[in-house]
């Protein structure tokens, strides 16, 4: 009784081993073919796998986004610092590039001018809208700078030296009401005296003693006349507004300066004798 049962068992096992061997051969020949059972098993397994993967991804995302952030905060701080440093550096480079451009223009102006000049750096900016004065420091202190000497920038006229103390000087900008510069409108040949407009927030000036019959208009260029120590034909600014009244000898013209007086960095001082005060103001 024992032997037939064992023999039967062996036969079943042999059949069970033979079956996969036969199926395996068929499967190797056509691996893409799936029978109904295969499809059922895969249909059941695939959604489960998808669900598990999605669930795992969700947990992973949760972990990465909300839990495992202790080093991210440090990294953020480090990157913020680095970003700030790089921004500062970039700004410094941009300023240096701008400075170089200014210096090149100033050098070109210096070559064009026949007068002897000395370069100076602006060390103190305008601190009051009532007093348009900037402080400069000469690059070479041994040269003698006197009050009244013209100060230029690459774009044109800046103003005059007002005070001198050692290597430092105060420059009265052309937009200060106390300033007076003899100017010409080349298009019409009109002459006048440029004076600052008190309280103007835009560094604007006006031309006094501009004859009413002169047909000046907005957009006209204004240059130095060559009287009062300034070399001739240096750009002063551009007329932006003309007020012509029905009476009187003169008209008013508002001038926007050719130089950005609020952003001065380097200037040239023209070492010329100061103009007599009575000549500058007619």
């Amino acid at each position, binding site marked *: 009784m024992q032997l037939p049962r064992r023999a039967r*068992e062996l036969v079943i096992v042999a059949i*069970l*081993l033979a*079956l996969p061997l036969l199926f*395996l051969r068929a499967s*190797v020949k056509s691996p893409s073919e799936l029978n109904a059972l295969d499809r059922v098993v*895969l249909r059941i397994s695939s959604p489960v*796998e998808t669900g598990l*993967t999605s669930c795992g991804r969700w947990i992973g995302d949760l972990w990465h986004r909300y839990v495992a952030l202790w080093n991210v905060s440090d990294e953020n701080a480090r990157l913020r610092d680095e970003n700030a440093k790089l921004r500062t550096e970039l700004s410094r480079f941009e300023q240096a590039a701008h400075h170089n451009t200014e210096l090149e223009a100033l050098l070109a102006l210096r070559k064009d001018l026949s007068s002897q000049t000395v370069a100076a750096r602006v060390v103190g900016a305008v601190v009051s809208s009532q007093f348009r004065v900037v402080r400069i420091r000469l690059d070479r202190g041994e040269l003698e700078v006197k009050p009244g000497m013209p100060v230029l920038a690459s774009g044109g006229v800046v103003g005059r030296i007002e005070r001198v103390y050692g290597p430092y000087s105060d420059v009265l900008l052309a937009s200060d009401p106390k300033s007076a510069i003899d100017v010409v409108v080349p298009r019409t040949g009109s002459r006048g005296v440029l004076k600052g407009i008190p309280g103007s927030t835009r560094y604007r000036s006006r031309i006094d003693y501009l004859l009413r019959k002169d047909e000046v208009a907005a957009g006209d260029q204004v240059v130095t006349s060559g009287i009062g120590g300034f070399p001739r034909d240096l750009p002063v600014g551009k007329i932006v507004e003309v007020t012509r009244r029905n009476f009187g000898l003169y008209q008013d013209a508002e001038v926007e300066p050719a130089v950005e007086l609020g952003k001065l960095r380097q200037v040239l001082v023209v070492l010329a004798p100061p103009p007599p005060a009575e000549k500058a103001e007619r």
Partner: protein
Amino acid sequence: MTLLRAMVFIGLAWASFVLLASFEALIPGLSPLPVPAFGLLIVLYLGLAGRATMAPLVAVALAIGYLIDLLSGSPRWLHALTLAIVMVIARGASNRLLVASRWQKALVALVAALGNGALLVVLAAPPEWPTSEVLGLLRVIPSTALVTALLAPFVFALLGRLDRKLAPPPSAFRSVA
């Protein structure tokens, strides 16, 4: 072997493959690492436990192998055949072999994994394949076998706990659990 026990172990094998596949999909960096052969460990456990006759155990091994083939994309019935052979050997050895300690379990699993891996390569590699490619396939076997062997004591312990709940062990129990 009861039908419930067979179904539970087949279901367990299926769940472990699905979990493993999902885990690998989630952590792509794991793919080069050797994957433990959970299916082999389940078959080994059942074979060495010796709590059933050969025929139903081989049928369970075939079912587990069939699931591995379907889910792993290997030629169908390849794992089924190799696991059925492993089951025959394990069940046959269970009468003479006492696998009790962790080291013994690990050693048995290592030998079984090496043999199963070699059998898989022999059966799967087409005759026209160059030797270098066959050697390439053989090269991954030791690492896989090692990982499987390291996990074997823990997996056997877990399966033993489960098995005790399904069917209390007879007095003449020769199992690994």
